[in-house]
């Protein structure tokens, strides 16, 4: 039995409302003590680490990551994804089922999670495809996937368009007590769409996707949810109307949660003005008013979580005219620092940021993490929230180096990441 003490740390744990200088003891793979102030005695410690007032917080739980592995390993392998996550302070990540083959049966869940655990590092979880082949028609074997460890169900990067299919999926997943994660985007309204619809799309001659495409699907789903029960989660919320709808649904008591991703609270559609395809994302970057609504939603609790929305894309897919260029960008390397922008701009507290990035997603997905409670697995990270750096895709640990935040100055540097009491970043252990 080995006890390691992290002292002189700025401990932040929203699950216990801890926010101040203190210490954390881990005994082997679990947290054994956490407290504010100076430890009374250090006689029982095998090892002591002076955190020099760096923030010690539960590891981040990234609830929306796309793995290119299996199927497109040239874009990113599980190994680089997990290494990048560890570097980003992420201790758990949830992968979308839109791999090749699609994760639409139990063995695929098993395979992905097992391969990730062999690599080690952050814990990888998988969503199951809601429909076979993600085609939006036939229900996949949700029950068997749930038994194999699927933490939720989703149709990945497309919404379930058919209302009857959606009704059945909500009803069926309610039986399994797993959330349904919806990418709210009406496929007809956004057909051939290239960017958010508005003056910018008109000036650029790009085909617009109206903001209403988000709330239309969301509103329909909320009506269905009242009838079916179950848990419904909206992924990467990006428009004011949809955020308002989630706010109303929560007030009504519906089991609705939501996340967003850094581009939607830091950027708006004007970024597309030079046809830079790094800004082609799904959903598209919205208007400034929508961006402000996302910030408000994060501050007032309407939006529960921030996810990286990591999507590996290579240069070939991006070095194209805007229309045919692939949407998506890398995210795990920058999740923490970009989210901390909200703290530095005084929209939210540091503790709220940790809640958004760690406690809330682990609660929504009902997975281990998000807390420094004694007895919990020792999944945490240490970071300096004020240390500045400039984002450079070329320096990413992820093999996917396309980012809409190239050359963007940020603050927040991860010093160490621990899983089950083991340091996984930096890889060379400190003594």
């Amino acid at each position, binding site marked *: 039995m080995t006890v390691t003490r992290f002292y002189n740390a700025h401990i932040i744990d929203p699950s216990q409302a801890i926010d101040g200088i203190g210490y954390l003891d881990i005994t082997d793979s679990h947290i054994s003590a956490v407290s504010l102030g100076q430890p009374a005695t250090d006689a029982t410690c095998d090892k002591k680490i002076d955190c020099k007032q760096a923030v010690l917080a539960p590891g981040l739980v990234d609830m929306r990551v796309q793995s290119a592995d299996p199927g497109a390993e040239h874009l990113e392998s599980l190994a680089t994804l997990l290494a990048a996550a560890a570097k980003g302070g992420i201790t758990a990540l949830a992968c979308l089922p839109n791999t090749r083959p699609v994760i639409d049966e139990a063995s695929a869940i098993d395979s992905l999670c097992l391969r990730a655990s062999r690599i080690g590092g952050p814990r990888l979880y998988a969503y199951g495809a809601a429909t076979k082949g993600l085609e939006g028609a036939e229900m996949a074997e949700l029950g068997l996937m749930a038994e194999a460890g699927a933490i939720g169900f989703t149709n990945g990067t497309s919404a379930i368009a058919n209302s009857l299919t959606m009704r059945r999926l909500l009803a069926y997943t309610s039986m399994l007590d797993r959330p349904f994660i919806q990418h709210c985007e009406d496929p007809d309204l956004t057909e051939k769409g*290239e960017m958010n*619809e*508005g*003056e910018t*799309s*008109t*000036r*650029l*001659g*790009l*085909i*617009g996707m*109206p903001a209403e495409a988000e709330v239309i699907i969301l509103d329909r789903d909320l009506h269905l949810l009242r009838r079916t029960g179950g848990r419904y989660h909206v992924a990467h919320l990006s428009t004011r109307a949809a955020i308002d709808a989630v706010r109303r649904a929560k007030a009504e008591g519906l089991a609705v949660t939501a996340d967003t991703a850094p581009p939607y609270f830091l950027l708006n559609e004007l970024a597309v003005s*030079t*046809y830079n395809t790094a800004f082609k994302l799904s959903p598209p970057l919205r208007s400034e008013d929508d961006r402000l609504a996302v910030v408000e939603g994060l501050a007032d609790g309407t939006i529960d979580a921030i996810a990286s929305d990591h999507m590996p894309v290579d240069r*070939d897919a991006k*070095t*194209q*005219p*805007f*229309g*045919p260029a692939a949407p998506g960008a890398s995210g795990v390397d920058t999740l923490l620092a970009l989210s901390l922008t909200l703290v530095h701009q005084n929209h939210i507290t540091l503790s709220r940021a940790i809640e958004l990035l760690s406690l809330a997603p682990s609660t929504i997905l009902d997975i281990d993490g998000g807390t420094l409670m004694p007895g919990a697995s020792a999944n945490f990270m240490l970071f300096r929230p004020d240390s500045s750096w400039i984002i450079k895709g070329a320096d990413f640990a992820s093999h996917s180096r396309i980012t809409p935040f190239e050359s963007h100055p940020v603050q927040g540097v991860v010093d160490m990441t621990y899983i089950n009491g083991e340091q996984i970043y930096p890889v060379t252990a400190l003594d």
Partner: protein
Amino acid sequence: MTTPTPNAHKGQSPAEAVRLSSRHLLGIEGMSPLEIRALLDRGNHFADHPTDGNSVALHGKTIVNLFYENSTRTRTSFELAAKRLGGSVLNIAVAGSSVKKGETLLDTATTLNAMHPDILVVRHNCSGAARLLSQHVDAAVINAGDGRHEHPTQALLDALTIQRRIGRIEGLTVAICGDIANSRVARSNIHLLSTLGAKIRLVCPPTLLPADIQHMGVEVYTDMESGIADADIVMMLRLQTERMAGTETPSQREYFNLFGLNQDKLNRAAPRALIMHPGPMNRGVEIDSAIADDVEKSLIHIQVEMGVAARMACLEAISLGAL
């Protein structure tokens, strides 16, 4: 130095070759009125002197016409303009080229770049393609139409046509009618004509109107008769037939009825209103043949003629490099 040429706005003296502030000609948006006027003056000069013996601006230079969309009019117009200026022209036809074999725009650009052309004239079905190309080749790039974005030389030739016929652009009321949403010609004309002080009206069904276009300083009409009332210029746009099959509009018949230009509707315009069309025309769909062919009213053939002159001015300006 912002004045493109010393005598750009004097009008009377023979226009001199123009130099622009940008190395490429990617769009009208952002060009200054002085630059536009200088190009028009120079185009006017070339219109009067189509085989200006002194003009050897492109002598020894290679111009590549890279057309990813079919075009007869624009491609031949650029070719003729380049040849009149003494340049060598290479036409890359899309059919049968490596483009059809899956080569990307930039692979093609890199290949062409190795041949060291001086000017690339590009047409592509994607908005922003000309700009993308300009970022990856050494040659100067002229946008000959990119998706729904811009078609700057078309706007210049349209303005040159109007200028020569009416003598001015400022204060004119121009009604642009038809498929605005999918038209790069409309966008470039809105930028150019409003920069030079014309009043722009757009006339189209709401399904062919792009979002928030009012912010570009135009008035929008869905009723053709009021839209062209007292207009000095009626500019008709082509509507692709597949957009009249129950999608954007119900049928060709209904479209012509509501938005086609016939004598009845034209009677609402200013007494000496002129008709323009960038071509190719759908006769009987967006424009009545009798009007299109009326030499008193229709500028359609003059537009084609001015195309060469305007493009000579552009090619010459681009060949001289940015200021």
